[in-house]
């Protein structure tokens, strides 16, 4: 092999791997990303049933019902629209009525959101960023953290 051929071989390998990676990334970005929506977005955008999305807002006080088979129903609201959510499984530690929550799953034909993942905040002073933004957009954001003194101080987890 001449020097030129060797160099070409390396360049071809590099381009091959790079092309493979690019292809994989583009394919995955088309299929496996999940959009975040507020309940209002879902009503306005008419999100089709079956599409995988994330929904964020506050758990509407008084809406949490537990039924047989560990099924939990609750409503997520951004103060404007409310979306019924059904979830089967263990809820996170800080899941509470009136608190921020993010659920991932899809709408069924009846307009009920079937969640397979429910995330709540990990800290009592922290609101998921998407939820805070969604609430701000609807004009329902009130910064009540002042009642806890320096509650806005960071609680960094060192990871």
């Amino acid at each position: 092999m001449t020097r030129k051929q060797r160099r070409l071989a390396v360049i071809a390998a590099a381009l091959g791997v790079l092309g493979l990676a690019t292809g994989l990334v583009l394919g995955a970005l088309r299929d496996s990303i999940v959009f975040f929506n507020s309940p209002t977005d879902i009503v306005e955008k008419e999100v089709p049933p079956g599409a995988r999305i994330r929904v964020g807002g506050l758990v509407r006080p008084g809406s949490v019902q537990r039924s047989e088979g560990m099924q939990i129903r609750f409503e997520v609201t951004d103060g404007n629209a409310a979306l019924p959510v059904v979830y089967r499984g263990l809820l996170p530690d800080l899941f509470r009525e009136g608190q921020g929550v993010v659920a991932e799953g899809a709408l069924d034909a009846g307009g009920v959101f079937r969640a397979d993942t429910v995330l709540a905040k990990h800290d009592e002073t922290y609101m998921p960023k998407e939820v805070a933004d969604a609430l701000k957009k609807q004009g329902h954001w009130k910064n009540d953290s002042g009642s806890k003194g320096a509650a806005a101080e960071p609680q960094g987890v060192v990871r």
Partner: protein
Amino acid sequence: MIAEIGHYALVLALGLALVQMIVPAWGARTGDAGLMSVAGSTALAQFAFTGTAFAALAWCHLASDFSVANVYENSHSAKPFLYKLTGIWGNHEGSMLLWVLILALFGALVALFSANLPMRLRAHVLAVQGAIAAAFDLFILLTSNPFARLSPAPYEGRDLNPVLQDIGLAVHPPLLYLGYVGFSISFCFAMAALIEGRIDAAWARWVRPWALAAWMFLTLGIAMGSYWAYYELGWGGFWFWDPVENASLMPWLAGTALLHSAVVMEKREALKIWTILLAILAFSLSLIGTFLVRSGVLTSVHTFANDPARGVFILMILVAFIGGAFALYAWRAPALKAGGLFAPISREGALVLNNLFLTAACATVFVGTLYPLALEALTGDKISVGAPFFNATFAPLMVPLLAAIPFGPLLAWKRGDLYAAAQRLLAAFGLALLAVATVFAVEQGGPVLAPFGIGLAVFVMAGAASDIVERAGLLRLPFPTALARAAGLPRSAWGTALAHFGVGVTLLGIVGNTQWSAERIVALKPGETVSLRQYDLTFEGAVPRAGPNYRELAARLTVRRKGEVIGVLEPSKRTFPVRGATTTEAALMTRGASQLYASVGDSEADGSVMLRLYHKPLVLLIWLGALVMVAGGLLSLSDRRLRVGAPKPARARAAAQPAE
């Protein structure tokens, strides 16, 4: 008073870092040996003062001095001693102080163990190290002062975030930071090489131990963090593709690539410019990791409230160092003499392939982590990129890399023989096929991916073993001779084989855990039994208990196998009254390399309790494999070539003179 001493010490450390940055670099420019030698002593002094600052903060935490805001926010007088200690870095300010402490520690270590380094190189390395230290000292002093006082002093603290009250906090962040910051050394060496415009095989020999040490710490730190998340968050997963996890994975991938390309540079003087680039990348990604975690720009399941103003400052540091490094690279790298070429099928070729796949994988993780951020900034759409994205991109890039691992060490330098290497791997390949067939036979209609995953893992492990068998001539030579040859192999050869074996072990664990885990979510009343695989779990009842600073409700589960009691699981829910927070404490039972995992949810009015139960086959191998990799790294690090291979100081200085 102690807090003020700490604050003052940190200011002095900043001053020393500035001296360390400017004076040696000036000395190197003017050729003044006196000025250049300032670097070593300032690095040591800077470490002493940063250490004093850290000790002062430690004292405030251990003595529960609530007049210090940082202690008030994160401590409580009833908190156990261990968490008072780990609480020092269980918050933003303290963890940044730990960051600069480790940075100063590495600077001091370079100063101590660089007697055989050419003087100019040493001065430049420590000057760049000083610049990084100065930037982060300034960041702490201006935006995140851990020594700020409160007046009047509160009587009691607000306690540490309960999720962090765990032994994991004692081990994981320091290890991770040793890894992150450890890559600053190879970064500094790369910068020094670019500034001097000179680089050779000796450079790689100096850099490799530092990069290897950083890589080992980072490996341990990631593995520890993964195990911590596994048992603390109560979801039973070992990796969530969370932005903060990705932030630690990216420098690991770049660092792994750096280790391999530095080998090529050391042995064959090739890939010089590429190695420099990887050294810059590894630390740049560490800095990006710090930025992602500390600024809170990304929503992550691990993120806690953060202050965006700090993010802007770190972003500025980021732009200055990464931008500066790449600008210097673009300017000076073309001037470096390129190394020799080699045949595509050769040890070098295999290592280049390794580098290509590792950097491509790193790039996909980078895109997946930062794409949501870019998209939100551009279009306002909020998206989340989760496990499906990474499974579809990262995994396909890892498979060819893993399959290629056994070939690398069997190929000769310069020009290898792929056919001969494949022949030597025949036994390993046979074992892998046997594993695939066995798993297919035993599984009977289980997940299709599992047999091939296990086969790949067996191939990697058996391939690593074949390398040693081949080199020792275990099958060709009489046994005692082969044994003597095996003992006489360089430790780095053993280290390589062991580390590659560890990769196979981790893969085995990942395949077992992702393909064969069984999960059950049930609500049980006292006395009821549920079965999970071959185990029967009986719920005996919920027991309330009190800890030092929490109350907990533990669910007692008796585990039986074929009617015989083999143990008790006690998952619990802890309530921390000071913060009004609850945490889930999972209970684990280890059976061989597999684990039974139980976590408890809400309890109902009728006395039933929600439980999440898992059987996780081979899960422990994930972290065991990481330990094996680190053991391999340790073995390589102890190779005498890495210690005595560098030229003697007198010769080095003599050699350095004409270059000036």
